Structure formats: C-alpha cells, structure tokens
C-alpha cells in the first residue's frame, strides 16, 4: 500500500493532466472508537482527474476514512496533505475541507427537507450570491444550471420544497449541489446511485468522466462492484479498517474485490446451505401472513411458517424495511397479520438497539422482562441464570456481562441484542439488517445462530442490505415500490436473481420516480388549511366582537383593543425563532418583564446605566444559548431557570409596580397618524422585520438548523454561532417587547411578563409553526397573536369573568395542538 504514496496515478488519459502533487494524500490514518479500530494505518492518495473506487463491506472503515478526509472526524494518528501542502488536524474541519475544494455527497442525504431546492443550494454555496437582494434568483439559476448539466431532462422544480420530492430526485439534487462548487478539486460520492434508476446512473457516469477529464478527482464508493469496475481508474479495497487491496482497474475483477473485501464468494456460501434441502416450506405452522395490496404480482397472500428463514430483499427504500416494522406492529388479522409472539433485532444498534447506560447483562435481561407485568420483581441473579445458555451458544464472554454495553465491539453488541431477542423466547424473530458494521468472522458465526433459530422452530424474517446474505434464507421476497414483486424459493435464490427482479420491476413500473415516497397532494392541502387557520380564527373573533359592538372596528377602537397585542406579538415572534430551532423558551415572558422594569427605572434615572443594563441583558440571552449548546442540556430547563433569574432581577430593582417611561421611548411607540391605528402600524412593522429576517440568507440557515442540524454542521456551518444568533434575535424581539410595555403602560411590573410565555407558545403553534422546528411563519404568528389578544377582550365583552382567561388560553392551545395533530396524522396515513 505504500506504493500509492509515490503519488503517480495509474490512470490512462489523465496522466498528462495530473499535476505534480496529488489532490489529497492521507497517510497512516488510524482512528479508534472504544475498542474498535475503524481505521488502521490507512494510506490513500488521489491524483488530479483520477476516479478512485473505494470498496469494502459495512464497517470496513470507508465512512470513517471519508469523515477524516472531509474534516468531520479527527484521527488518532496520521497525516494529511492537500495539493502537496501538509495540514494539521487542529485547524482542519468541514469548512476548511470545502475551502480546499473537497466535497462529499453523503449516503444519508444532507439536504434540508423544509427548504426549497434553491435554498439548499445556498447552504452549500453561501458565497455565490451573497446577501444582495434578489439572492434567491441567483440560486434558482445556479440550481437549474447544475441540475441541467449533470442530469439533463431532470424535470425538478427548483422552487419545490425538498421534503416533498421523491428520494431519487433528492439524490440528484444532492449530487448536483456538491458538483456546483467552482472550486471543486475532489468530489466524494458515497453510494450515489443507490436510489437512481439506470438512466440517471448513466448520466452521472457521463458527468464524472467529463469532469475527470477537466481535472476534478473523484472517490466513488459503491456496493455495486460492476459499477465500480466500469467507472473508476483505480480501486482501493478496505477490510477491517485496513487497505486490503489496491490497484488499477485493469487488474481488478468482481471476484478479486470480493475476496479482498473478505466476503465469501457466492459459491462457498452456497456450499454451506445443505440444511434447507431437508425442509420444504409447506411444513410448519403459519405465523405471519402478508396479503392485500402489498403482494401485487404473486397475487395471493404470502404465508410465513415456523422453522423458515424468510428474506425481505429489494433496493433500499422500496418497502421491505417498512414491511418488517409492519409485521412487528401487526395484529392477528388485517392485510398483514402476525399470529405469534415477536422479538426484533435491529442492526442500527445506537438508535434502535442498545440501552447505553446499562451493562451487557441488563441489556440482555430486558428481553425477558419486557413481556412481564410491571409489578413483578427482577434480580440480576435470575437474569444471569436465564441468560446463561444463550450466552454460551453465542460465545459471549461471561466475564464481560457486567461491563457497559458500549465497551463491547459492534459484533459483540449485536450478539447481546440477539441474546436479548432469544431471552424473550418468541415464536418470530425479526432481523433488520443485523450484521451492519459487524466484522466478517462475527458474521459467519451469526449466520449459524440464525440457522439454529429456525431449526428450533422459530420463524426468522430477515431484512438485509447485503444481497449475499439472502443466500442464508429459505425464501426471499423481493420488494419494489412498496410491493412484493417476486418470490424466490430455495435454489432460485441468487444475488443476480434478486438484483434483476428488483431493478426490472423498477424500470417498467415507475419510470423516473422510482422509489416509494409519501403521497404529497393530501399533505399540501392539509398544510394550506393549517396556514389559513390563524387568519380565519382572527376574522371570526373580530367579527364576533364587531357584532357585539360595531365601534370595535373604528381606528380608535382597534387601537385600544390591540394595545396589549404589541408586546404579545413581539414576544411571540421571539418565541417563534426559538421554536424554529426546535427548542422552547420558558423565560421569554419574564425576560420581557425584566427589560420592562429596567427601561422604566434605570433607563429613566440613569440613561447610560440603563442602556448598559439592557445590552447586558440582551447579551446574556446569547450566553444562555452558548450554555445550552456547549453543554447539550435541555433549553426548556435552562430557560425556566433563567426566568427565575429575570424575575429575581426585576423584583430586586423594583419590588412593587411603578416607574415611568423615558419621554423619547414613549414618543417611539405612541406617535399618531390620523386615521391609522398606531398599534396596527407597530405590529405590521414587527411582522415585516421578522419576515425580512426569515426570508434573508440568515433565516434560511436558521430554518436549516431547525430541520437537519447534522447536515448543516457537515456543511461547515457552526452550530454554536447560529444558536447564539438565534437567541440574540429572539432576545432582541423580547427586549423591544419590554420597551413597548414601558412606553404603552408608562410603568413597569415584573409580573406583567410572565403570562406572555404561554401565550407566545400558543401564538407560535396557532400561527402554523412546527414545534419540532424548521417551519416558521411570521405572518401566521402575528395574526395568531392578535387573535389571542382579542379573545381576552371578547370574553370581557361577553361578560365572562377574567378568571377564565387562563383556562380559555390554555384550552385553546391544547385544542390547536390536538387539531394540528389530527391533520398531521391524516398526512401520515
């Protein structure tokens, strides 16, 4: 492997294009995660215009190596040189990598679903259009231009919201977006064709060839070895974190690569499969049944029986994984039904497998405990005894049962999860890509365990992303577009048959929008209803009030009624920006209260001290964000704690309501244009400022963070900086709210702010923002704030005691949330 360090690319036509220095040279990269060595002394050099294929099984270390290359991970040891210049790891990060022209198209897409295609281009290329007005059209053009270039005839609307597009189109956008960098030196494509149809894959290959001829280097990662052989000039195969084979494409073949990656060849696997000759699929008890729309071509219900191993195959995202989950959640009747007890083993150990705070034994024991009554007693001793035989069968080291589960290697963690499923002693075991990131020897051991499960009379249903694993199955159901399109039994099962049936169906049935995507028409209608809700309720409330007292609609009447709405609108807008980042600020009302007090006391007595105090308060808001994000603690508790600080400060400054308003401040808020209600103008101004922020590039970044913070971070955006900016924006609105209270009431009361907190959350939710973050609507929030302010007045006009105010507001908030939930649920269906 050291030969590669000589840095002369092997390739054909590009030889003369290649400069003296390789685009990137990684040397001796070593990185460990706990006991697992993800990379061990890996060298990788990529020359100008070279297309390097990177192959290796799951967990071979490809992703780690690419994260190191892109600045996302700092290795334990190793060197990096870009264009011949050595770089130090300390000042190498995703932003630096991008500046150096290194870009990655990740396997898990790094686009923000809540933004438009053009806005997503902005996130990748913030330098291209700057902050000028009209920046949007720049990015629309950019997006169109590059999509046309890479995927001619793509048919993607660049103003479409990304989350509404099918996965194939999203992948095209992701690739075009990374390719659009004018500074591009090296583009890493991680499984770029996993959801592209053959025609789009061909276009991509053509683009890669054309760009390579111009000197751009590529690293192409794919499980499809034939594709690698067609497109690359040199291939590097990784195995267990080391370079196992490296050479020019001329010397490579599928067999050669498979051998290097450590996979057993199909033939040798098949040799192990003598046991299923013994069993035919018609014996055994029916434990699960798949019928209805999911089984189009077979045209009959598929019955799964005890003692069988059934594989669910297909291209990723074609419904096989959903089917597994469907079976897990199914009852004993319906289209998909399950007639036996079930346990589940997921290969996504972090998210769906391990309990990170527990020992190995506790992680196993929960499988037995889960099915029991909550009041039954548990003991470590009983668990140990119960788990002993399984542990022995799986060859788990008994001396490590007491260690934390995370101290085990991936393979052993997976064994523990299998032990958990066996401990539950169920009739059906569902496996969801269980060997992900598990090394080769552990894998073959695992296959033995699965065979044992079936021999013991269990039904094993197995979804895998590695087609070769289906050779372990008795039966394979191939999925495409959410349906079973082929059933392969016994000797019919081969990698080729699986790939053929999943692709064939794809081309004939779906055309360009191949993969399953959620239906979009229904959701856009539901969304429109949600969007209109605040306006409709505002008009209803206003109408109700006007019918009781027509004077309400006069400028003076409106001014009087909406006087209290100014502060609420501002505070709600502050809350909106926090909610946009999927957090909630429980101190925002109290903060407005404290600025109210400061501006009515200090600012009057000692203007310079008052201004300093207000600025300090505003900055401390940014500090809160810094604490929340540096320490990763829940915003809700921090802001709740902060609310006590604000109230305490306000109370210390002014124990009882009082104070006065500085004249200039009153002048700012209480001027008069005849015939126009001042408060309406103020509220409109506040709304406009919020809209401008939201529509600006900054607003796009903030919304992006609310939707997919990991992707933005990989793109080189600083989480901390934007968290602080978000809180400073919110703090700014809340501060102005406090000032408006002072100016309008010409007095202050620290307790005046508190009630605004709940109201602001209500206004944000009612205004159509998503509590999960990413989706905000300034106009909706403004209108919702007006509505909420009017409700108080409406209750008054109707002669309802003010005691009911809180209940009505709380009840309204719940009602809105419940309605939103109902709409969302329909969307999901």
């Amino acid at each position, binding site marked *: 492997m050291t030969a590669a360090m000589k840095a002369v690319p092997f390739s054909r036509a590009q030889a003369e294009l290649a400069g003296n220095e390789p685009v990137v040279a990684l040397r001796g990269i070593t990185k460990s995660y706990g006991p697992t060595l993800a990379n061990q002394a890996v060298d990788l050099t990529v020359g100008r215009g070279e297309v390097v294929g990177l192959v290796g099984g799951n967990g071979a270390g490809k992703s780690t190596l690419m994260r190191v290359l892109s600045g996302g991970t700092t290795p334990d040891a190793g060197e990096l040189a870009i264009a011949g210049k050595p770089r130090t790891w300390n000042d190498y990060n995703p932003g630096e990598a991008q500046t150096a022209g290194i870009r990655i198209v990740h396997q898990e897409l790094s686009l923000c679903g809540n933004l438009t295609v053009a806005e997503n281009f902005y996130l990748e290329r913030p330098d291209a259009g700057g902050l000028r007005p009209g920046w949007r059209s720049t990015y629309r053009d950019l997006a169109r231009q590059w999509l046309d270039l890479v995927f001619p005839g793509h048919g993607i609307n660049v103003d479409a919201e990304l989350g509404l597009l099918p996965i194939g189109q999203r992948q095209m956008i992701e690739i075009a977006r990374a390719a659009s960098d004018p500074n591009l030196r090296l583009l890493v494509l991680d499984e770029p064709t996993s959801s592209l149809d053959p025609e789009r894959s061909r276009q991509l290959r053509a683009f890669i060839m054309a760009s390579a001829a111009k000197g751009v280097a590529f690293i192409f990662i794919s499980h499809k070895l034939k594709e690698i052989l067609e497109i690359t000039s040199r291939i590097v195969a990784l195995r267990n974190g080391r370079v196992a084979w490296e050479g020019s494409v001329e010397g490579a073949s599928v067999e050669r690569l498979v051998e290097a990656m450590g996979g057993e060849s199909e033939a040798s696997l098949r040799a192990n499969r003598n046991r299923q000759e013994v069993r035919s699929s018609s014996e055994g008890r029916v434990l699960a049944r798949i019928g209805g729309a999911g089984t189009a071509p077979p045209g009959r219900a598929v019955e799964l029986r005890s003692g069988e191993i059934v594989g669910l195959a297909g291209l990723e995202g074609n419904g096989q994984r959903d089917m597994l989950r469907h079976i897990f959640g199914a009852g004993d009747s319906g289209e998909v039904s399950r007639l036996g007890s079930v346990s589940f083993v997921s290969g996504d150990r972090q998210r769906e497998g391990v309990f990170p705070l527990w020992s190995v034994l506790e992680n196993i024991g929960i499988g037995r405990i889960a099915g029991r009554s909550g009041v039954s007693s548990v003991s470590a001793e009983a668990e140990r005894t119960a788990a002993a035989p399984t542990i022995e069968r799986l060859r788990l080291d008994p001396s490590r049962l007491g260690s934390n589960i995370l101290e085990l290697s991936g393979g052993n963690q997976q064994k523990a999860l299998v032990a958990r499923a066996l401990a539950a002693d169920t009739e059906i075991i569902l496996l969801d890509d269980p060997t992900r990131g598990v090394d080769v020897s552990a894998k073959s051991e695992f296959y033995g365990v699965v065979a044992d499960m079936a021999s013991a009379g269990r039904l094993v249903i197995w979804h895998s992303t590695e087609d070769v694993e289906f050779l372990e199955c008795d039966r394979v159901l191939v999925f495409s577009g959410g349906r079973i399109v082929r059933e392969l039994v016994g000797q019919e099962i081969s990698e080729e048959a699986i790939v053929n049936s999943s692709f064939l169906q794809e081309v004939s049935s779906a055309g360009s929008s191949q993969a399953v995507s959620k239906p979009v028409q229904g959701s856009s209608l539901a969304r429109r209803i949600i969007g209109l809700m605040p306006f409709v309720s505002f008009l209803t409330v206003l109408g109700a009030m006007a019918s009781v007292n027509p004077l309400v609609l006069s400028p003076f009447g409106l001014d009087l009624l909406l006087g209290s709405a100014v502060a609420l609108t501002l505070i709600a807008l502050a809350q909106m920006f926090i909610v946009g980042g999927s957090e909630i600020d429980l101190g925002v009302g109290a903060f407005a209260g404290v600025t109210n007090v400061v501006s009515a006391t200090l600012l009057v007595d000692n203007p310079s001290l008052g201004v300093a105090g207000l600025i300090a308060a505003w900055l401390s808001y940014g500090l809160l964000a810094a604490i929340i994000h540096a320490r990763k603690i829940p915003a809700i508790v921090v802001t709740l704690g902060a609310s006590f600080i604000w109230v305490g400060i306000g109370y210390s400054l002014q*124990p009882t309501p009082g104070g006065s308003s500085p004249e200039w401040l009153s002048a700012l808020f209480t001027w008069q244009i005849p015939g126009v209600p001042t408060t309406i103008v103020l509220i409109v101004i506040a709304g406009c400022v919020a809209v401008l922020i939201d529509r600006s590039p900054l607003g796009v970044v903030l919304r992006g963070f609310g939707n997919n913070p990991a992707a933005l971070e990989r793109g080189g955006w600083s989480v901390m900086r934007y968290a602080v900016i978000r809180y400073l924006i919110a703090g700014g609105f809340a501060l102005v709210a406090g000032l408006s209270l002072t100016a309008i009431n010409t007095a202050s009361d620290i307790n005046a702010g508190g009630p605004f907190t709940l109201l602001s959350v209500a206004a944000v939710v009612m205004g159509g923002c998503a509590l999960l973050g990413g989706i905000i609507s300034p106009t909706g929030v403004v209108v919702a704030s007006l509505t909420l302010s009017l409700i108080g007045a409406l209750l008054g006009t109707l002669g309802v005691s003010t005691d009911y105010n809180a209940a009505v507001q709380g009840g309204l908030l719940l009602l809105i949330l419940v309605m939103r939930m109902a709409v969302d649920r329909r969307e999901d269906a």
Partner: protein
Amino acid sequence: MQNLSPWMARNRWIWSLIGILIIWGVLSLITERLSLHSLSGVVASASFLVLAALGQMFVVTTGRGNIDLSIASVIALSAFVSLIVIDGSDERIVLGLLAVLGIGLAVGAMNAVLVLLFRIPAMIATLATGYVLATTTLIANRSIAGAVASPTLAYLAGGRVWGIPVIFLIALVAVTLSSLVLGKLAYGRMLSATGQNARAARLSGIKTGRVTATAFLISSVLAALDGALLSAYVGGAFLEMGAPYLLQSVGAVVLGGSLIFGGSSTALGTLFGCILLVLIVTTMQIAGLPPGTQDIVQGVAIIGVLALAGRPVLKRAARLKPMSEQTAGAQ
C-alpha cells in the same frame, strides 16, 4: 481512590449528600441559630418537596426532555379541594383523600393522553393543563370560607414522633417505595429502558406508552397528595402555594443526580437534592437575602448544576457514536 470514582459515578446521590454536609457544617460554624431543631424544620419543609419531586423524577426518567410543569397547579388545586371537602372534620378525611386522588388521576391521565395520543411535547401539554387548572383553582378560591385542616391530616403534616416530623417519615416511605420500584420491579427497568432509548425499548417489546402514562399518573397523584398535606401544614390554601414547586421539583431531581435526559434516576438522590435545595433557600433566608436575590440564586444554581452535570453524559454519548463526536469537534 481509583476504586472510589466508578462507585461515585454509579451512586450520583453522593454529591448532593456532600453538598448538604458542607452547607450544614458551614452554617453551624458561622451561626448559632442552626440547631438540630431548625434542621428538622428544614427536613419537614423538604419533605413536601420530596413528594412532588419524586413524581417529577418518574416523568423525567421517561426521557426525551419530558417534564411535568402541571405539578404546581395540581398542588394548589388539591390543597383547595381537600380543605373544602374535608372541612376540618376527620370523618370526611377518606372522602377528601378520594377527591384528591381523583384530581391526581384525572390530571395525570389528561397529561398522558395529550403527550402520548396527541404527541404534544410534555412541557407544552403540562404547561397548558396547568393553566386550565389555575382557573379551576381561582373558582375554588371563591367558594372557600375560613378553612381549617382536619386534626388527623394536620398531625400527618405537622406532627412529630420522637421529635421527628411525621411528614418526613412519610417522605422516607415514599422514597423507599420509589427506590424499590426503580430498582427491583420490572416497571423500573422498563421505565429506564424507555428513557434511555424509546425506539429500542419499543422494539424490545416494552409498551412504552403505558410506561410513560404511568409515570405521569404517579407524578400527578403524588403532587395531589402533597397539596392536601401542604394545606394541612400551613392551615389554609392560597393561589400561589404550588408555584415554588415548579422549578424546585426539577431542580431537586437534577441536583440529586438523576439524568435530565432520562433513563437513570435515583430516589435517594432526589431526597438529598430536596434537602439540599431547601437548605440553600433557608440559608439565604437566614442570611437575610431579599426574595429577588433568592430567585436569582435558585435560577443560577439550577443552570449551573445542569451545565456541570451535562458533561459526563455527553462524553458517554460521544464514545457511543461518531456522529456526536463530529458535533463536538466542529465547534
């Protein structure tokens, strides 16, 4: 020392106990006023916090940032209702406790439905139910007239056995029961699993919805009983009587060493956390700090403890997944 640190990492309640001993030591050095008797006063008022905080602890353990913000309103409402229903007579005590229990179960069920069925974030749902309850309390406030606590309830809340406040014994029983539930019952395991990794818990066959709903019920019922005892203790009820428990119940849980992200809680730690918190407040009162400053100190203490306690969890998570290691690296 090397053997000690993993032990301390496992028994996080030790920190709050150390905190108590330090403050107590310092106080007895600088002032004569802190006798053993006044410490028993601290313990008595901490006991009311313990009942509320244990409930909060169960909700926090369910994870995903779940917090019960309706505790304060439940305490106030059940204080009013118990006074009105019992009306100072021991014969009506069962009736009163049933009413209080009913409030707890109803509010807990309401919270659970909102959180689980309608998937409203717990803090928003409980905040909103809290507001609705506040109105109910206002109405109850109008119908209350010169309330007196029943003798039995007053004894439970304010009496002493061998110089030990009865309420403290009640709190100790509650702590012991909670400890048993968390450590020895299947429910405790399921609760911890749900809090650590809800998806994994569901796939392991745990009915996470039922587990979470139970936690909300426990929280509301404990808060309701607490309210009844508190009204007997102070001999009346007022609108804001639950308010201090809003932040303090969360604060005591965190101070006690339970993880704010859920999944791991200690009832013993919550007990010590409550005593520590009440001790801090008492110290401030002895020192003559104005109420405003006391609020500030409490707020700063909560944020400070969270910021310090957040760290080990983060480290652990970083080791768990490369993704979060990436997060830490790019800042």
